[in-house]
């Protein structure tokens, strides 16, 4: 196989940034995006500023990828936002924003990537959920709903895309030291970790271990699966 082309959303920081560096180091051509500029530079990495829920911008990105790189091998739909608040205190605008980024953004990227992958009869898509889904975490109703939707998308897309050699799976991280959980009180994180069978915070490497598995060519029989870290 030629140099794999790996698209990763939300690469400015956190897990996405780590994965961008991880796959650059593994010899992939990595195309990342985020709403704002990125300070990560590498000759194998290119960055695009866009909102993942902006359908037109996403279509333009994939047109660029098709023309410049001839296709896409992998898509890691990492971009996501969280909202941690009691549902009684959550405005509709927050719901709309979360669903837009986490569900609509994920869908549009899957669709555009699959159009290109289809021609090559090969592709790997990894979507991102959270252990908050199986744990039914209080205070994260909308975030959990959006990620449950991502799992539902994964289930159906895996069947729709499977017939042309594209797998779609989900990795669901446990809390990791990222901006997403920085605002969560220590005791809440502790309570969450106590529910895990592996009782520690997650690491970026834990996530990369799962994405590596999903992306490898030998994983062609692994499709429509959700892997929850920490033994959820």
């Amino acid at each position: 196989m030629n140099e794999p082309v790996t698209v990763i959303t939300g690469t400015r920081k956190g897990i996405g940034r780590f994965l961008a560096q991880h796959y650059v180091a593994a010899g992939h051509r990595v195309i990342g995006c985020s709403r704002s500029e990125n300070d990560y530079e590498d000759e194998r990495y290119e960055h695009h500023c866009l909102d993942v829920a902006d359908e037109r911008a996403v279509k333009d990105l994939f047109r660029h990828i098709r023309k410049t790189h001839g296709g896409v091998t992998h898509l890691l739909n990492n971009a996501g936002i969280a909202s941690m608040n009691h549902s009684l205190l959550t405005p509709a605008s927050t719901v709309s924003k979360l669903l837009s980024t986490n569900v609509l953004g994920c869908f549009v990227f899957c669709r555009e990537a699959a159009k290109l992958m289809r021609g090559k009869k090969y592709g790997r898509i990894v979507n991102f959920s959270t252990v908050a889904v199986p744990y039914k975490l209080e205070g994260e109703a909308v975030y959990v709903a959006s990620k449950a939707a991502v799992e539902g998308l994964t289930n159906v897309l895996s069947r729709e895309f499977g017939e042309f050699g594209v797998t779609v799976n989900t990795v669901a991280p446990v809390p990791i030291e990222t901006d997403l959980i920085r605002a969560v009180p220590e005791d809440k994180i502790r309570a969450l970790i106590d529910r895990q069978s592996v009782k520690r915070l997650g690491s970026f490497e834990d996530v990369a271990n799962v994405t590596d598995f999903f992306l490898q060519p030998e994983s062609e029989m692994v499709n429509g699966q959700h892997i929850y870290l920490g033994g959820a």
Partner: protein
Amino acid sequence: MKEELTKLVIQTAKDLGEEAIDNCDDFSAETRLFGDDGLLDSMGLVSLVIAVEQSIEDEYGQVVALADEKALSQSNSPYRTVATLVDYAHSQMPAGD
């Protein structure tokens, strides 16, 4: 313009590698694509629509959506024949009528 588009759609369809199209002796603007007596099954149609969208992008630099809600809900499907698909594509192009 429509003549050019017709050629583009026919060439794109022939490049798809769909058996039914390859085996069609006289693949022309009047060939039935989808529906009663159509050459393509639903996945074949999906392939064709995506490929035509990409060909239009490459040839004219215009991004068109040939599978939006409008197309899917039209009582006279734009996917019946090559000619109806060309008409529909033309109507979706910013420079179209």
